[in-house]
């Protein structure tokens, strides 16, 4: 057998099987309410095999629910980038701006989405904009911080080229500062997307909007525990794919 298959297929399978065994053991012994892997599959089959059926606001195939969540995350993530990128550049470029706003950034960064969401509901009165507000507010910090760090770590050599050529401020920004910072910015984007996906579940649970998180919470309340596991697995799988996709984009930018 080729070492490649061994490392890329067999070993990860060993990990997955171990977790399945552990899960089966836990459900068979001290947590009888936890559905076993087999039962989970039997009760969730329809949601996976027919991912786009719809029988009600909350009773829909996983594909549909995931789509709702992804659209919500997409909006929140886009808003996070739209706000976070310029703030990051300003923090990196202007000492005065940094001194004014860096403490606020450090202060707001550790605030949990669970704390922002009620505030969003107060401000917007509706759950959808409140959810997007929360996602954006929680997800933008890695973008802000990575962009600022990227701007501040531009090699003096590159800036000296701009100085010798007497490039204008805007040309320096466009031709030197932004391209030099781009790899950092995209690392920020990848981390922000991960956070946005992390926040979606919490915000859907609290607002009860249809999506993977909303479904999870509703199934918990209706005691269909296997669907909680289904939701958890879906969330993990989508998060993994999103991270890989952003990783590809990041690698492309890094080719510099």
């Amino acid at each position: 057998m080729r070492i490649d298959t061994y490392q890329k297929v067999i070993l990860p399978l060993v990990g997955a099987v171990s977790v399945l065994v552990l899960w089966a053991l836990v459900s068979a012994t001290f947590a009888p309410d936890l559905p076993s892997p087999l039962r989970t599959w039997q009760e969730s089959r329809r949601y996976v095999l027919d991912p786009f059926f719809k029988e009600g606001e909350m009773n829909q195939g996983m594909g549909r629910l995931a789509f709702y969540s992804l659209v919500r995350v997409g909006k929140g993530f886009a808003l996070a980038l739209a706000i976070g990128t310029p703030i990051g550049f300003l923090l990196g470029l202007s000492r005065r701006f940094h001194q004014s706003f860096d403490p606020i950034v450090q202060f707001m960064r550790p605030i949990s989405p669970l704390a922002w969401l009620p505030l969003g509901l107060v401000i917007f009165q509706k759950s959808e904009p409140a959810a997007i507000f929360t996602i954006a507010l929680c997800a933008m910090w890695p973008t802000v911080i990575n962009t600022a760090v990227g701007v501040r770590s531009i090699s003096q050599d590159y800036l000296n080229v701009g100085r010798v050529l007497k490039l204008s401020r805007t040309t320096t920004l466009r031709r030197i500062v932004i391209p030099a910072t781009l790899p950092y910015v995209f690392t920020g984007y990848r981390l922000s997307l991960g956070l946005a996906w992390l926040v979606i579940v919490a915000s859907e649970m609290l607002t009860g909007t249809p999506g993977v998180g909303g479904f999870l919470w509703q199934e918990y309340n209706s005691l269909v525990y296997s669907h909680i596991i289904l939701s958890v697995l879906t969330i993990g799988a989508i998060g993994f794919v999103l991270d890989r996709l952003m990783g590809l984009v990041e690698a492309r930018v890094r080719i510099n």
Partner: protein
Amino acid sequence: MAYLEVRGLRKSYRVRGGATPVLGGIDLTLDEGEFVAVVGYSGSGKTTLVSLIAGLIAPDAGEIRLDGAPVREPGPERGIVFQQYSLLPWLSARANVALAVDAVNPTLPAAERRRLTDELIALVNLTPAAWKRPRELSGGMRQRVAVARGLAMQPKLLLMDEPFSALDALTRAALQDELLRIWGERRTTVMLITNDVDEAILLADRIYPMTPGPDAVLGPAIEVGLPRPRQRRHMSLEPAYQKARQALVEFLRAGRNRLAPTAGHPRETRPRAPIP
């Protein structure tokens, strides 16, 4: 008045608990169209001198005038070829040169700027690799791009800060020959900083030796009496070459020995004169 006038240039760097005096009063002059080299040991402050003339840092004391105008800030009329190339890695070789062409000739029509860029790329023999990014180029090719970019600034004075010191010996020799050819075609005023005595003699009309720092100063300029165009072959056998080399090496060695006792580790034992 000379084309480039440097008078009493001093620069110290602040370090913890004091200041390191790097340059202790540099005087030098360059005539228009002249190729002048400054030779000194590594760490003697040569790069500091280039950065001061480029205007990238400000002197503590002294004056720099180019073509009568005092130097206060960087500008393309003092084009620079950096020791570490400083090419922008996200731009192709050609785009790196084009950036300078465009910056210096903003009023020229685009087609004309393109032609200028192509001409410079051809001048440094990079046409086949023009679209490659710096990381896809060898060290020698990168330095060609940097030279083309320096020339693209159409500088009154081209500053070259140890341009070939990072290259292997063969590549270095090839690039020196090319620089000789390019300079023959363009006659740009050049100030070359190097730690290579032979490189300086091969390329320059006059050479200033630099004492090792701290408080580095320049010795009297040594004229290289070799005719142009120069050929590397057999040059080392010419009396003018030997004479220049001997004068340089003697000055540099004397400077080093003068410093050795204060460093605590004399590198050469020589008889000391009895103290009267």
